[in-house]
């Protein structure tokens, strides 16, 4: 027999079973895992993502890093992080001087309006970053 109380308990359970969104601490931990604790400096990285997104299921994203891309001075990796999807990682791409230009484009999912962070690792061991705020009207990831 189902009374109102068990229904309510079931509803609460269903709510608590929803996947927890990543927190800013999760994002900071993921960034630390990528940089090894090195400080992030603002600049040199350009993150191109639309500021207002209608559909969070496919959001175009482009990261461009200012670098001569020579054997002595090049971008070794570009990583993108989010703060409110279920997991903080988006993509980690490894580059070498043969890339010619430090450019990466992809399509990502956004669970809700949030700030996206792009980090570039340089061959001299420094890390540069850029972030962008995105407003999402239709979310991805959690809804079916």
């Amino acid at each position, binding site marked *: 027999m189902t009374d109102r109380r068990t229904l309510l308990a079931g509803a609460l359970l269903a709510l608590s079973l929803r*996947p927890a969104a990543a927190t800013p601490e999760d994002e900071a931990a993921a960034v630390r895992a990528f940089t090894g604790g090195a400080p992030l400096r603002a600049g040199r990285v350009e993150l191109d993502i639309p500021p207002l997104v209608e559909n969070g*299921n*496919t*959001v175009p994203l*482009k990261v461009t890093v200012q670098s001569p891309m020579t054997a002595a001075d090049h971008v070794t990796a570009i990583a993108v992080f*989010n703060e409110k*999807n*279920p*997991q903080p*990682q*988006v*993509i*980690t*791409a*490894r*580059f*070498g001087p*043969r*890339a*010619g*230009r430090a*450019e*990466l*484009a*992809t*399509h*990502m*999912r956004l669970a809700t309006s949030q700030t996206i962070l792009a980090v570039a690792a340089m061959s001299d061991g420094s890390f540069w970053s850029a972030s962008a705020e995105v407003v999402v009207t239709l979310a*991805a*990831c*959690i*809804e*079916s």
Partner: protein
Amino acid sequence: MARVLLNLPRSAAKGSVIEIRCLIMHPMESGFRPGVNGSILARDIITRFSCDYDGEEIFHAELSPAIAANPFISFTTVATASGTLRFTWEGDDGFRQTETRALTVT
């Protein structure tokens, strides 16, 4: 076999930078979404994409569930010598697909 769209020039001048755009048809099931019966659908994503140019890896990327379905990746490389480019996608449940394209450098 998943359908693959690869967009790169067939020939390029030596030393020029070419753009390579890759798309593979794949659902990228995130593992966070409930199915029709309410239970969470198992994760099924592509976890790694790589590109080899004449046997040397020039680019690779680790993907996460936050990448949209039918993952699209665009990157660049310097056309150094005529040869083949090999693109490999690897994913959950032993998914693996390889495509090759020839590039003529003049």
